[in-house]
């Protein structure tokens, strides 16, 4: 039986002491003897072909060891592309990047050569002297235009830009619309942004000729994916490729896929016989690290006279960018997320995934969900406007009730299991959020503000999020001969405090302190199988594995001690780092002694019939996703003259099941909201008509700062899931998902006197002024 000295507590982080004193070891901090540094030669064109790369001058530059093009890579890599992460039968052209492009580049920043030199400075000097005979081709610069007849094609071998089509839904949609009292139609367009962890990507590779083995450090969320891709590319045995994540300075999704550099740098290390490092700089990050969010939703809702949903149908265009490293999973997530917390009798969504000559898109904090929630919540607001109802009331009339759980949506999720909401109380979540936000008083406050010439508004964003995806994550626990307990897991952390969370779960089971536990994660050498840190899945998967393994290890420790004392296992108990015979002044044996007994050390005899096994492994395989939910309420003030938006108050009710560490969950939520604020108001990757990226510095691409992001009022509801032993659900992305919907709704609400409708995000001051101006022109025309 476990106690809960740690689980559920605001336990301080084990990660902090090193990070607060500069002792963290991030990728670019690694320095190996003889290490060289790399700089890539990248395409300036969004779409071009080339035949010759002239590197003669570059090769003669000071400190340059090599300039490698696709032709110079090992023969095994010839003609190969990066392993596709998630295959799907509906993909028309399953194309991923080549390690180095051989003849065609499809986005600005695609690499065609790499310079290896004694320092990054010298490598960059030479990279600018590599001359490529580019022949530019027309480029597709936006997903909507890319699907129009005659649009430039992203890949010269294709005749159009369709990367895949999906259609999903349930119920009799035609009947729903036939019988509707009202039909609301709209086009919603969330725009492309990016993850921007403060640490960019990076790779260090060492090749050991004696054992024909790679050791690769990568700033990645998924070391096992990198390992699989390297194995695939080089045709090596898996125990010859070890991928390690050092401290990772943030991920947010884009570090959850395999990049060309993770293959080219190992190839260079092998060719040159020296360690090679590539540390991505921010400009490269803007050009080459995956992005997300451009979608075009044309949706209609059919409702009855009371605003109760009868059906939703529409089309979704999803911008894939130039390649499909993640297949077409994101628009799939979008389409299955749209119904959200609402009872929807009929639903049909036709999805088209469009190639564009832009950086590929992959899951970014929220992964297709913020857009779907934006579309659905904006639609609910539009229903409210059409029927003259309060937006909260429309939602109340449509909620799935707690008593409906488990609720079968009627869709199949990305993991192949039905979309089956497990637990949650959606009406209560909204009710608590409204109460905390002072929603009932708001009309009076709004009226008073308006009398002073101030435009304030309030908006709601509700969501349900599939989290904790499988297939599995594993953990191995071992009691070490120094008496400490080690947890080995495949999960790689990027700021989420896995060490602390996993130690909390283990400490309660083994009745030790979290500081007695060492957590080693993100290393394929210590954990041969793993999926990775994405889809808000680590606490659910790795946490449950730790729980399972802890229970087993606890049993083994008790059994071993009982054997030593020659008593029954039920007669011994765990105390702090030891096992003792129950009762007063019973004999006890420390973990250290137990570990030494089983380590084969001379002088420590093993009791009869006991195996030298103070180790346990657990692999948790969830039966399906577990569904977190929440309600956000944003209150904003808009300067109707300048268009400036200030967030006055932000309320979050968040339900991620059992909370392991409320301090950490608060941190995930607050940080997630900040990202959502960026998506709502600030962050947009802008490209010109030739698909050149224009926002390539932090001066043009605006990240939320301390003066923009308010303190969120966070309320935790806990609806434990029966789907895992912890009762936990994912918490990493829920802060972001509904924020654009809530904030944009609040802005629109503030601008009620002008009759403005907002259908895209981020909503910039300029756009607000344009919308007000357009609305006023329309009003005048009406007169």
């Amino acid at each position, binding site marked *: 039986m476990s106690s809960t000295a740690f689980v559920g507590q605001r336990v301080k982080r084990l990660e902090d002491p090193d990070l607060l004193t500069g002792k963290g070891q991030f990728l670019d901090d690694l320095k190996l003897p003889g290490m060289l540094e790399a700089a890539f*030669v990248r395409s300036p*064109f969004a779409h071009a072909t080339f035949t010759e790369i002239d590197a003669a001058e570059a090769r003669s530059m000071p400190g340059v060891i090599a300039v490698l093009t696709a032709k110079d890579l090992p023969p095994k890599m010839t003609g190969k592309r990066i392993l596709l992460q998630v295959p799907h039968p509906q993909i028309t052209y399953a194309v991923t990047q080549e390690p180095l492009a051989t003849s065609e580049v499809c986005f600005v920043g695609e690499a065609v050569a790499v310079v290896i030199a004694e320092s990054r400075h010298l490598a960059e000097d030479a990279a*600018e*002297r590599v001359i490529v005979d580019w022949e*530019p081709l027309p480029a597709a610069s936006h997903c909507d235009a890319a699907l129009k007849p005659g649009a430039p094609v992203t890949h010269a071998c294709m005749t159009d830009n369709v990367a895949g089509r999906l259609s999903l839904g349930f119920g009799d949609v035609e009947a729903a619309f036939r019988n509707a009292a009202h039909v609301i139609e709209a086009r919603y367009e969330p725009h492309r942004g990016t993850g921007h962890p403060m640490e960019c990507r990076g790779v260090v590779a060492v090749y050991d000729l004696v054992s024909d083995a790679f050791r690769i450090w990568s700033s990645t969320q998924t070391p096992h994916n990198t390992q699989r891709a390297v194995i695939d590319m080089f045709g090596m045995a898996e125990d010859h490729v070890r991928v390690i994540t050092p401290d990772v300075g943030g991920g947010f999704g884009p570090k959850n896929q395999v990049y060309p550099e993770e293959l080219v740098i190992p190839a260079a290390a092998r060719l040159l016989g020296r360690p090679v490092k590539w540390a991505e700089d921010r400009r490269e990050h803007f050009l080459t690290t995956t992005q997300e969010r451009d979608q075009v939703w044309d949706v209609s809702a059919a409702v009855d006279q009371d605003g109760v949903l009868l059906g939703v149908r529409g089309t979704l265009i999803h911008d894939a960018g130039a390649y499909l490293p993640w297949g077409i999973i994101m628009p799939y997530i979008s389409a299955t997320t749209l119904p959200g917390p609402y009872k929807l009798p009929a639903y049909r969504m036709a999805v088209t995934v469009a190639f564009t000559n832009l950086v590929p898109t992959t899951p970014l904090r929220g992964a297709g969900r913020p857009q779907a929630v934006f579309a659905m919540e904006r639609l609910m607001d539009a229903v409210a406007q059409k029927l003259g109802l309060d937006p909260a009331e429309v939602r109340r009339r449509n909620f799935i009730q707690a008593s409906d759980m488990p609720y079968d949506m009627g869709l199949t999720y990305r993991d192949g299991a039905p979309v089956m909401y497990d637990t949650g109380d959606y009406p209560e979540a909204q009710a608590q959020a409204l109460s905390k936000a002072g929603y009932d008083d708001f009309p009076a406050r709004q009226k008073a503000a308006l009398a002073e010439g101030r435009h304030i508004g309030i908006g709601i964003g509700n969501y349900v999020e599939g989290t904790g995806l499988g297939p599995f994550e594993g953990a191995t626990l071992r009691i070490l001969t120094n008496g400490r307990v080690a947890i080995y897991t495949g999960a790689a952390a990027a700021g989420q405090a896995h060490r602390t969370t996993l130690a909390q779960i283990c400490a309660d089971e083994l009745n030790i302190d979290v500081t007695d536990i060492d957590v080693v994660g993100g290393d394929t050498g210590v954990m041969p199988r793993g999926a990775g840190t994405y889809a808000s899945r680590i606490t659910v998967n790795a946490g449950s594995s730790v729980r399972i393994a802890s229970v087993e290890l606890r049993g083994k420790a008790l059994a071993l001690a009982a054997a030593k004392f020659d008593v029954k296992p039920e007669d011994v108990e765990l105390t702090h780092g030891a096992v003792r015979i129950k009762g007063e002044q019973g004999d006890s044996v420390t973990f250290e002694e137990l570990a030494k007994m089983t380590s084969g050390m001379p002088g420590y005899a093993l009791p009869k019939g006991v195996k030298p096994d103070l180790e346990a492994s657990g692999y948790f395989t969830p039966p399906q996703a577990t569904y977190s939910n929440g309600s956000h309420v944003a209150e904003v003030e808009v300067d109707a003259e300048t268009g400036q938006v200030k967030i006055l108050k932000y309320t979050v009710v968040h339900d991620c099941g059992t909370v392991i560490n409320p301090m950490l969950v608060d941190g995930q939520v607050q940080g997630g909201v900040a990202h959502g604020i960026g998506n709502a108001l600030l962050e947009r990757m802008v490209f010109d008509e030739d698909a*050149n990226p*224009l926002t390539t510095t932090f001066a043009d691409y605006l990240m939320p700062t301390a003066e923009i992001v308010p303190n969120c009022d966070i309320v935790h509801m806990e609806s434990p899931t029966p789907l895992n032993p912890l009762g936990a659900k994912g918490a990493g992305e829920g802060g972001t998902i509904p924020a654009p919907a809530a904030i944009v709704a609040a802005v629109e609400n503030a601008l009620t006197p002008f009759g403005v409708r907002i259908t895209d995000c981020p909503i910039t001051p300029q756009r607000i002024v344009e919308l007000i101006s357009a609305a006023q022109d329309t009003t005048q025309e009406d007169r």
Partner: protein
Amino acid sequence: MIIENTLNLSLAPDDAWRTLLNIPYVAPCLPGTKLTAVVDERTYEGMVDLKLGPVSLSFRGTAVIEDVDPEAMKVRVSAKGREDRGRGSAHATVTFQLHPSGGGTRVEVATDLNLAGSIIQYARGAGVVTRTAQQLVDQFAKRLSTRIDSGEEPDPEAIKVGSLLWRGLTARLKGGKQDVPDA
């Protein structure tokens, strides 16, 4: 980006036609341009220097007369250049269409310019780049008609375009210096 201009030349169409095909005569009219080599009668190498505020750029490249149609009085020149430090690439297709106009010639110049590279990946500067390209082509038209009309050679030195957006040849070429301190 497509930039269109019209030149009104005093030359008769036949003379104007011959003049326009004389690349060594025409090229220096593009501000900051120096012809460095004649590869063959249709292929020329040269460099274009220009200054975008504090950023000095030097493009080297090739211009090829691709399509000459004396019947239609139409010629197409394609040019491509690479910035010396790899900060950008410029590909341009320039079409000259001649029309008789009074005793002289009206030349319609259509430039399809494709710029790429770090120099244009800058949202705040996007307006300046477009304006600069436009002014460069405008100046080309103006200087060409001046040269034809007056025989005057274009000034190879600092070229003042509009509000000095362009300073023509870089200081390096002149053996000069740029002493601009910075914030």
